[in-house]
């Protein structure tokens, strides 16, 4: 390159050899003289405005080249252009909704019945749709299982549906590129189909959790016809299958018992947690709560458990026992409660006193319990948790409890095995173990993974990770990239259940339908369609449907055989229901039957048998008791025993994709965003460990490092770790949170057991560089770095730093026999109700029209957290991320406070749902300088978000601390799919704004509109707040206080009603119904003696 000479400086210098040369005009390219003349000028001569004006005007005498007229023209032009700038930019083209679906009215909610498939429990659900997109799901009130309730997982399901991290098109692993490459559906199907066609007798295996819909059954049978070597392996990681095996050996039916807790006056739990981990949680939760209404029929619950469970802490009596002692106590109880029965003679001779002594239970307790159990024979349930223990102990415990139930006469009365047994968890570990063996022997030619993630869910020793790649054709039908997907070669992404057709039969005879609510603009197909298309492409006729000739077809065309295609799953489901229609001889025509099913969401063929099933029970086979392992009874607890447990929220780890659930604090420890190595205080002291210390727990030949949490209520000989955490790959959110406990899982002959003896916990030095990577939480959260608040300790996102009531009159309880005494009434009325305090304004303010209020019944609340998530989903509440939870900035409008009482190792638990109390004389209102929070004329304490400037004074002055502040921009404003998730009736708050519970004012307004249209009053129960609506136990009641006949007015008039912090004279409209415990009046062991009041 030569230096450009000075006289040549207008000309662009020639670039270096080989450098890319850009040019704009031909003149420049050829470097013509004309170009060179102009090159240095900014404007080409004819583009100069003054020249234009000169030419027209002729006499530009002022020397500037600008005439007066030209100036005016130019400024006029500028003014017009400036005005045009006011038009919206960029221009948005609107496509008018010309062919709008007939039923959709913009802004009006539509409700569709469907079935929640977040877990195989398959509760009936109602999806609320707005403008063609589902924004909320709720329990189907008519459905016999859900009865309007829904769990936290169901409520968070939208974060699965609208998750921006979903895989939105098929991917194939390319060996050449050693990477996943996108592939078209047709190509993927045809390639996989040709591989399937060439399997040559090897097995085609579908590995999935329990599938129980009629269409699924038919599909599996049809797949077997399409591929004679087809096999379906059901695997529910947390269901070892022990319960079903016990039913098989004792009754000859392979079924999961269906428990009727509403019929049980006495319930004894041996490590069982029907609310938290049962197969049909929402149903059990509801039923259990129904029997907790104060009165002679109120149930009494006894729990024996190593780890605090939701049902355990809900019980009247809770005893901490080592895991091995569950069998000891159960055996002694069986002998005493059913003397002479087969089960009593099949268990070792153990007296109640021996069991009490051995297990550390206060003396005399068991005898009293047995007395009650005997009295309530036929009205009781003995429930155990064998589901996550595939070892001999689990199998033995399952058999023992079922046999004891039989001996007590409960089978047929409170337990149903045959009339309408549960299908909700029929998977077994055994089958999967068998599958690994088959793969290793080379018998499997194709493996489809559906909604299972065995590489994460099982320990390395299972060999599944090595086995999967040995299969020639491996297809993942998962919606996400998870750990197992990376061992397959092809991912054909499935759909969310809100995008799918389908059906379910969670309990025999209860048929439930799924209908799609939305078609996300992604290339996902529901797995049933994928498999039917694959089978058809592989040459099978099973799913073939003819495409009829068009009406306009010529005769010549009509003569040809019609084209074929695979059936759509919609057609397939409809056909299955036509079968049902025929099989059950339904009177109505199929069309009206189908329509009614779509409208109701289910078809309960078994409704007559649901409550009256005594006659249908199979005969008891005492021989089956031989399945009990004598060695299991011999097992003695070691110094420290491992229990891996699953929570009702996190299950086996799917929750890691749903930030709502990650941020939902654990019911007992109130820790969010983490699991931990749980130890009791005494044990931790003995091991010189503190909360936040880093430790290694080893058992069953594996070891795991993690932070320690001192957990009151945990058995002293137990170390507990929650399952479902520590995902390595879980889309954008989950990885890096918590610790993966699967290395501690023990392989057993029947599968895997989540127990272990001789566990060790040792302090370790934490490698803090490997600490939570704080990955971007995309689902509506902003991250800040986690500051380690206490030097050297692991930072936990614990939302409740203080666990004790400090003797404050916050939580009230009484016992059944004290409830109706005048003393109790007097105490509540005079000290803890607003009535007791004078109103300084003389008389109460009268609200014309409606006056809304709420009660929350402690007796019903089991602390499941569904309300918290429901409120988040309904009210567009953001997730703030672990860092901000640590800082104390969680946004939940409703929270569940958990208080302990008594001994640090063995405390009583109290749960209190806290939300805005909508005070009559609200301290927040008078201190807001801009009137952003004030009363409306229906008694609601409202927030005007766009008026709020964020002084936070209202929060400071709120005695209940239920106000939440957007310290940062927590909402995700950008991700398109997340916008669909939001409720359009609720403002999406920005940063700097205070927010809080509104009693779901948008729902009140909807009810008001519909009442007005029908020219009537809002009916009692017409307005259900989101928390109330989802609450499986009906603990929350909302309504009009001006109507003395409303449910809420009646509850408030009851003697259990009290106002929290009534002495501050805030006159809350949310009041609480004191908890009533039901202890044995002659038996009040230490720590369980419950008296009225805490104060």
């Amino acid at each position, binding site marked *: 390159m030569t230096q450009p000479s000075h006289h040549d400086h207008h000309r662009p210098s020639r670039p270096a050899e080989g450098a890319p040369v850009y040019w704009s005009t031909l003149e420049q390219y050829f470097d013509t003289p004309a170009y060179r003349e102009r090159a240095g000028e900014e404007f080409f001569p004819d583009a100069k405005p003054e020249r234009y004006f000169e030419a027209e005007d002729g006499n530009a005498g002022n020397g500037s080249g600008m005439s007066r007229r030209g100036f005016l023209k130019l400024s006029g032009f500028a003014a017009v252009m400036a005005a045009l700038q006011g038009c919206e930019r960029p221009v948005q083209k609107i496509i008018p909704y010309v062919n709008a679906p007939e039923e959709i009215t913009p802004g009006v909610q539509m409700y569709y019945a469907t079935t929640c498939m977040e877990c195989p429990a398959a509760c009936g659900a109602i999806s609320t749709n707005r403008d063609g997109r589902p924004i909320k799901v709720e329990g189907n009130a008519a459905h016999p299982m859900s009865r309007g309730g829904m769990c936290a997982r169901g409520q968070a399901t939208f974060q699965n549906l609208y998750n921006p991290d979903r895989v939105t098109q098929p991917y194939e692993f390319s060996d050449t590129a050693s990477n996943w490459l996108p592939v078209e559906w047709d190509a993927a199907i045809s390639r996989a189909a040709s591989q399937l066609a060439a399997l040559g007798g090897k097995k085609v295996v579908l590995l999935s959790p329990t599938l129980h819909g009629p269409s699924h059954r038919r599909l599996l049978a049809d797949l077997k016809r399409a591929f004679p070597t087809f096999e379906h392996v059901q695997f529910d990681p947390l269901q070892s299958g022990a319960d079903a095996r016990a039913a098989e050996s004792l009754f000859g039916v392979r079924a999961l018992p269906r428990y009727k807790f509403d019929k049980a006056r006495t319930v004894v739990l041996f490590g069982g947690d029907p609310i938290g981990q049962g197969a049909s949680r929402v149903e059990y939760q509801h039923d259990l709560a129904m029997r907790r209404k104060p009165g002679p029929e109120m149930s009494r619950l006894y729990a024996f458990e190593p780890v605090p469970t939701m049902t355990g802490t809900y019980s009247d009596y809770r005893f901490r026992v080592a895991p091995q002692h569950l069998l000891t106590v159960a055996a002694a109880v069986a002998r005493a409660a059913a003397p002479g029965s087969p089960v009593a003679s099949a268990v070792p001779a153990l007296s109640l006193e021996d069991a009490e002594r051995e297990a550390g239970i206060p003396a005399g307790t068991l005898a009293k319990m047995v007395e009650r159990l005997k009295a309530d024979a036929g009205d009781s349930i003995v429930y155990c948790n064998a589901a996550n223990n595939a070892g001999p102990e689990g199998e033995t415990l399952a058999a023992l409890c079922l046999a004891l139930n039989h001996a007590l006469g409960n089978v047929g009365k409170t337990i149903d095995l045959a009339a309408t047994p549960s299908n909700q968890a029929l998977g077994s570990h055994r089958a999967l173990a068998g599958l690994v063996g088959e793969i290793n022997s080379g018998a499997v030619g194709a493996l489809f993974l559906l909604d299972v993630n065995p590489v994460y869910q099982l320990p390395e020793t299972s060999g599944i990770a090595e086995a999967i790649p040995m299969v020639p054709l491996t297809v993942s039908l998962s919606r996400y990239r998870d750990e197992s997907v990376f061992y397959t070669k092809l991912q054909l992404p499935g759909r969310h259940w809100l995008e799918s057709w389908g059906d379910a039969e969670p309990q025999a005879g209860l048929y439930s339908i799924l209908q799609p609510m939305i078609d996300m603009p992604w290339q996902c197909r529901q797995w049933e369609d994928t498999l039917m298309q694959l089978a058809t492409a592989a040459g099978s006729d099973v799913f073939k449907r003819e495409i009829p000739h068009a009406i306009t077809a010529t005769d010549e065309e009509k003569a040809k055989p019609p084209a074929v295609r695979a059936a759509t799953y919609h057609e397939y489901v409809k056909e299955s229901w036509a079968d049902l229609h025929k099989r059950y001889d339904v009177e109505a025509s199929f069309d009206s039957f189908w329509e009614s099913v779509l409208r109701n969401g289910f078809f309960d063929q078994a409704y007559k048998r649901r409550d009256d099933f005594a006659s249908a029970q199979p005969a008891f086979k005492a021989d089956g008791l031989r399945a009990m392992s004598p060695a299991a009874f011999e097992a003695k607890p070691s110094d420290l025993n491992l229990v891996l447990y699953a929570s009702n929220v996190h299950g086996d780890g799917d929750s890691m994709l749903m930030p709502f659930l990650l941020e939902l604090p654990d019911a007992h420890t109130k820790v969010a965003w983490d699991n931990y190595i749980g130890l009791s205080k005494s044990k931790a002291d003995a091991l010189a460990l503190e909360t936040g210390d880093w430790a290694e727990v080893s058992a069953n030949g594996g070891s795991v490092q993690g932070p320690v949490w001192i957990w009151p209520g945990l058995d002293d000989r137990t170390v507990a770790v929650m399952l479902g955490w520590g995902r390595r790959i879980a889309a954008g959110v989950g990885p890096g949170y918590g610790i993966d406990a699967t290395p501690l899982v023990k392989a057993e002959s029947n599968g895997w057991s989540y127990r272990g003896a001789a566990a060790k916990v040792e302090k370790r030095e934490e490698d803090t560089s490997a600490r939570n990577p704080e990955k971007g939480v995309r689902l509506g959260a*902003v991250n*800040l770095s986690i*500051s380690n*608040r206490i030097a050297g300790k692991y930072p936990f996102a614990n939302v*409740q*730093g*203080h*666990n*004790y*009531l*400090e*003797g*404050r009159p*916050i939580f009230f309880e009484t016992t059944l026999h004290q409830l109706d005494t005048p003393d109790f009434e007097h105490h509540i009325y005079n000290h803890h109700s607003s009535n007791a305090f004078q109103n300084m304004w003389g008389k109460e303010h009268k609200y014309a029209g409606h006056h809304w209020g709420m009660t929350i019944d402690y007796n019903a609340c089991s602390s499941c957290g569904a309300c918290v998530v429901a409120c988040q989903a309904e009210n567009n509440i953001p997730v703030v991320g672990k860092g*901000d939870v640590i*800082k*104390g*900035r969680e946004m939940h409008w409703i*929270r569940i*406070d*958990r*208080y302990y009482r008594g001994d640090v190792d063995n405390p009583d638990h109290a749960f*209190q749902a*806290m939300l805005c109390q909508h005070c009559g004389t609200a*301290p927040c*209102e*008078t*201190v*807001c*300088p*801009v*009137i952003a929070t004030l009363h409306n004329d229906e008694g609601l304490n409202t927030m005007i978000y766009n*008026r*709020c*400037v*964020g*002084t*936070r*004074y209202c*929060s*400071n*002055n709120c*005695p*209940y*601390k239920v*106000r*939440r*502040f*957007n*310290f*940062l*921009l927590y909402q995700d404003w950008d991700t398109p799919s997340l916008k669909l998730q939001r409720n359009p009736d609720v403002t999406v708050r920005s*940063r*700097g*704004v*205070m927010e809080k519970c509104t009693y779901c004012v948008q729902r009140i307004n909807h009810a008001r509109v519909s009442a007005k249209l029908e020219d009537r009053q809002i009916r009692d129960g017409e307005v259900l707040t989101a928390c109330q609506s989802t609450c499986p136990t009906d603990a929350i009641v909302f309504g009009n206080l001006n109507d003395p006949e409303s449910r809420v007015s009646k509850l408030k008039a009851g003697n259990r009603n009290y106002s929290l*912090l009534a002495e*501050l004279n*805030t006159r809350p409209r949310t009041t609480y119904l004191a908890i009533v415990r039901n202890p044995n009046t002659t038996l009040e062991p230490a720590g369980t003696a419950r008296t009225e009041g805490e104060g």
Partner: protein
Amino acid sequence: MAEMQHDVHHSGGDAALAALKARTPAVIAPGHSFESVTESISHIVLAKRTPIGWFFGFAIAFALLMLLNVTIAKLLLTGIGIWGNNVPVGWAFDIINFVWWIGIGHAGTLISAILLLFRQQWRTSINRFAEAMTLFAVACAAMFPLLHTGRPWLAVYWLFPYPNSMGLWPQFRSPLIWDVFAVSTYGTVSALFWFTGLVPDMATLRDRAKSKGAKIIFGMLSLGWRGSARHWHRYEMAYLLLAGISTPLVLSVHSVVSFDFAVSVLPGWHATIFPPYFVAGAIYSGFAMVMTLAIPLRKYYQLDGFITMRHIHNMTKVMLVTGMIVAYGYANEAFFAWYAGNQYESYMMLNRMTGPYAVFYWTLIAINAGMIQLFWFRSVRDNIGLLFVLSLLVNVGMWLERFVIIVTSLHRDFLPSSWDIYYPTRWDFAMFAGTIGLFLSLFFLFVRFLPALAIFEMRTITPEAKLKLEHHG
């Protein structure tokens, strides 16, 4: 000013009085004349050369001021989540700093207005820079009510009652609105008072200035002051009226600030003693700040002839009195926590004394109740170096008092479930340091470009003035 000069006139008297006078340092060092007073004060402003030390100090202050700018920019862009505030601790450094600065401002007004009305002529030497200090402290304080909000761009005008088509008014029942009125009134009156007092001195500077620029600027600022009798008459009247207006403000502003807390339901805030206790605390911390500023000022500008030990002693005594009132407030709070028998109140007190922030509580008790007892001793009052340290400690103590009141009350209130802990972040400290930077920057500029002491008032306390008065009388 004639009234004040009578004090000087009464200088005869009996022997006891004479002995007392001998022990009490004069309010102005002997040997000063009109000319020497005028020269030594105006020299600071009119000198061509700025002392190198000034640049050094100003550089530090200005760097902190830039830190404030960065912090505010970050705050506006990100949100107040950059601070450590949370729920339940909705207010922390933001309001602590607000109350602290506004409290510091009080000494200026007290000196200018109340001491003027009480004819305390010793105020003359310190009133000018104390007023400036007030103004700058109010500037620092006024920033926080705005910036502590989540959306200051709205708060900036929604907090003021302005007529609008929506018929929306602020919540007049909210103490925060009272704050807005109190602080804006206070700021306005302080500025007027300060400027009015400056006018005759501006004229002096105008007359003495050598450079054209200074002549023009001081000429404009002196508002055409010619020193005529009518000017003096009107000036005196205006000054007196402003003093009358300011006097209730001394009491009202911090009372209103204390209502931010007293009006709430929170244990630890909900206390009737707050208004007097806050006012005393404000004067206490304000005098400490005056002392903190006066000691270096008199040293580096050789003003110890004007700010004499008499002033130092008097300020120390005011601090002793107000400090004791504050200490009484602490005792009173503790007493009522016990006597009221309210478990939330008693827990609050217990938590202050033994909770996670107990160290701050005991530090503040040690300073505000313990350390100030040193002020009883004349040897301490004479020890300038020690007094400087002690005055700084008083400000630390008063800052901690606000920390204890705000944070420890909030972090554990009624429901134990919502109890949490508060940790400041580096942005909290940056904001605090930044306001100190703003304050000091303004003060450095003030010392350099305006007369830090009231020249004409200082002239009135020289012996010359006395002579003239006697001559005329």
